[in-house]
């Protein structure tokens, strides 16, 4: 019986290995979030084949280690993720189950964007009573274009390291991305002059880098503690604060529940805006930022 099973299992394994598609168009990249998928596409062009694990309708903190994701990580040559514990609930399991050496911690194919920039908002006190906090600091760096620029340089180096035969092309793509991006940064900076210094309320404490870059003041969050849904007592307290000191905008991520934001908006007449926390599928970073800026500037009541 044991021998029979052995034969069956070996046969099936042999068949799948043999049948498995040999086609291999460039580097296989597993991007945890759409922003890194987009950046990898800009810097890698035709040399990369990017799979995006999440969409901008999903909360990257709470993703399940689905079978489909394990299958994708199994075949990846490069992992481009945020790091800093953002994916702690699912990525470690994918890595352990994948049986893939190339993308394990410490390998060149293990690229964590937050390893290459300075993180802000490092909590001074690590205690879970403060909610779902990140020990290494705020990981949502994709909302700061200057940090994206820093990540781009390092990501391009990683691509060259994994695929040295296309070095020149990667370098060219990095130069053109950097020039275009720097011009856009200046343009966005000019565009947003009128809103600088205004106050906003956010749902989750995730917009820190964006607000800091644009000089917006975050005066409160709808969540009393990060990761814990807004409570009614906290909301009513916020209401009285806002009635005394009106703010410009209430911001929430498009994947978040909009009930609390809408409630507060109705009571205070402060407009809300649902911003995409990440680019849409196949959207470029430039296009996504253009949208964000546009939404922040043209607030509809």
């Amino acid at each position, binding site marked *: *019986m*044991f021998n029979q*099973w052995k034969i069956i*299992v070996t046969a*099936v*394994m042999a068949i*799948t*290995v043999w049948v*498995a598609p040999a086609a291999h168009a460039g580097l296989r990249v597993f991007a945890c979030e759409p922003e890194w998928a987009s950046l990898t596409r800009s810097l890698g062009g035709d040399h990369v084949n990017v799979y995006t694990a*999440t*969409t901008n*309708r*999903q*909360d990257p903190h*709470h993703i*399940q*280690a*689905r*079978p*489909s994701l*394990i*299958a*994708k990580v*199994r*075949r990846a040559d490069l992992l481009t993720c945020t790091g800093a514990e953002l994916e702690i*609930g*699912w*990525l*470690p*399991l994918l*890595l*352990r*189950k*994948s*049986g*893939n*050496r*190339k*993308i*394990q*911690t410490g*390998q060149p194919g293990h690229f964590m964007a937050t390893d290459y920039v*300075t*993180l*802000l*908002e*490092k909590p*001074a006190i690590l205690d*879970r009573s403060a909610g*779902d906090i990140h020990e290494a600091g705020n990981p949502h760096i994709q909302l700061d274009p*200057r940090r994206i*620029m820093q990540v781009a340089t390092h990501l391009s180096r990683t691509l060259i390291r994994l695929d040295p035969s296309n070095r020149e092309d990667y370098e060219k793509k990095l130069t053109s991305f950097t020039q275009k991006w*720097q011009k856009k*940064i*200046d343009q966005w900076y000019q565009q947003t002059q009128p809103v600088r210094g205004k106050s906003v309320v956010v749902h989750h404490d995730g917009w820190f880098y964006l607000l800091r870059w644009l000089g917006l003041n975050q005066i409160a969050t709808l969540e009393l503690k990060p*990761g*814990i*849904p807004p409570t009614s007592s906290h909301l009513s307290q916020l209401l009285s604060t806002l009635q005394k000191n009106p703010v410009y905008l209430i911001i929430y991520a498009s*994947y978040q*529940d909009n009930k609390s934001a809408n409630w507060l908006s109705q009571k205070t007449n402060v407009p809300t805006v649902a911003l995409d926390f990440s680019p849409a599928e196949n959207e470029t970073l430039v296009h996504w930022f253009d949208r964000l800026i546009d939404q922040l500037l043209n607030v509809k009541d």
Partner: protein
Amino acid sequence: MRIHILAASVILAVSCTGPAFAADDIQSLKKELNNLKQDYRQRIQALEDRLEKAENNARMANAKASQIEEKVQEEGGAGTASSSQNSFNPAISLVLDGRYAGFDNEPGAYKIPGFALGGEAGPGEEGFAIGETELSASANVDDKFYGQVTLAIGDEDGSTEVGLEEAFIQTLGLGNGLTVKAGRFFSAIGYLNQQHAHAWDFTDAPLIYRGLFGNKLIDDGLQITYIAPTDIFLEFGAEAFRGSRYPAGGDHDDIGSWTAFANVGGDIGIEHSWQLGLSHWQADNVDGRISDSGAAEPSSFTGDSKINALNLVYKWAPNGNPYNRNLKVQFEYFDRREDGRVVVLDSDPSEITGYDGNQKGWYAQMVYQFMPQWRTGLRYDRLSSDNTGSDNELLAAAGLDDQGHTPQRYSAMVEWLPSEFSRIRLQFNRDDSYDDSDNQIFLQYTHSLGSHGAHQY
């Protein structure tokens, strides 16, 4: 006077040479002017280029300056990384579990006709009780291995006992989709078996797990899994065990029991995901497996035992974002066949009967998170058995006669999860494990301290 003469002579000279000089010179002046024009154009172009370069440089410099400025601000403010001796400590997690249980029937009278119960099978204690406190440490050993230990601390008959639930090492990125695990671990049979009790969606194990495994199949051995390089998730694996622990038994010099399993899974669109698993467990040489839980006479089984299992899991979340709302449906089916003899213990002279057993069962459950922090679920369990032996009276004494009863159970629960790390659950069971129906109620907390690892699909 002298000046006047000088001026007059100059005027005369100029007026004399005038016309001839003019005609020739306009031409050259024009030429010169053109040259000048061209020259200036080039110069302006060059200047513009330089200006643009300078502007670009300034822009870059500005960007760099602002980065540096930010860095300086940041370094002044935030604390630096710790470099103490315990920064390489493994991730430690401690799960606290406690409950209040109320039953209509005596828990001591619990039995499942047709199943000789062993291991931890049973409804548990009545009243206030501490469940299993789980202490777990895990870390990457080096770049090649991962290691994990889980201790379960619980009370048994008034004394605190520490059980070693898991102690294994596992390869990290062996390559080609292969992973090897060695030590004591949860067998990959079925779906729920690989989950820690704190990750269960109900307070108690499904009846079939209770009936066949005494809640859980844990053994010492080796596991090899292979993930195929395909777009669809395709996993094959095999395990070789010592086979001394329930539901195997006896001392074995080599492989006492083994399993083979295959899992396939994937996504349908962005909102649906699924996994289907087949598994087989076999122990050819069970020697004196003791079943002493429940109300039946303690007995011991010697012979061979095989289990085939099927499981199906389906999950749904709007936009694939499970944080606000999600649904999980799970179904498992097990079929065990055994051939050998059963000894009723504590009998003198020892009473032995030949035994040919077939026990099956399934459960289906559905858990719905209808808003953040709140989940509710339903579960249905159903078992059946068809056991024959040379001495039916003895079989009945050992609890292996189904007494014409079909064991089944209905469960409903509601959970409040204030955060990822805490859960309070209220569960109600209508338990028809045996012919005397039991109403069971549980109020349970499960809280976790420290680092909390990722949960399996």
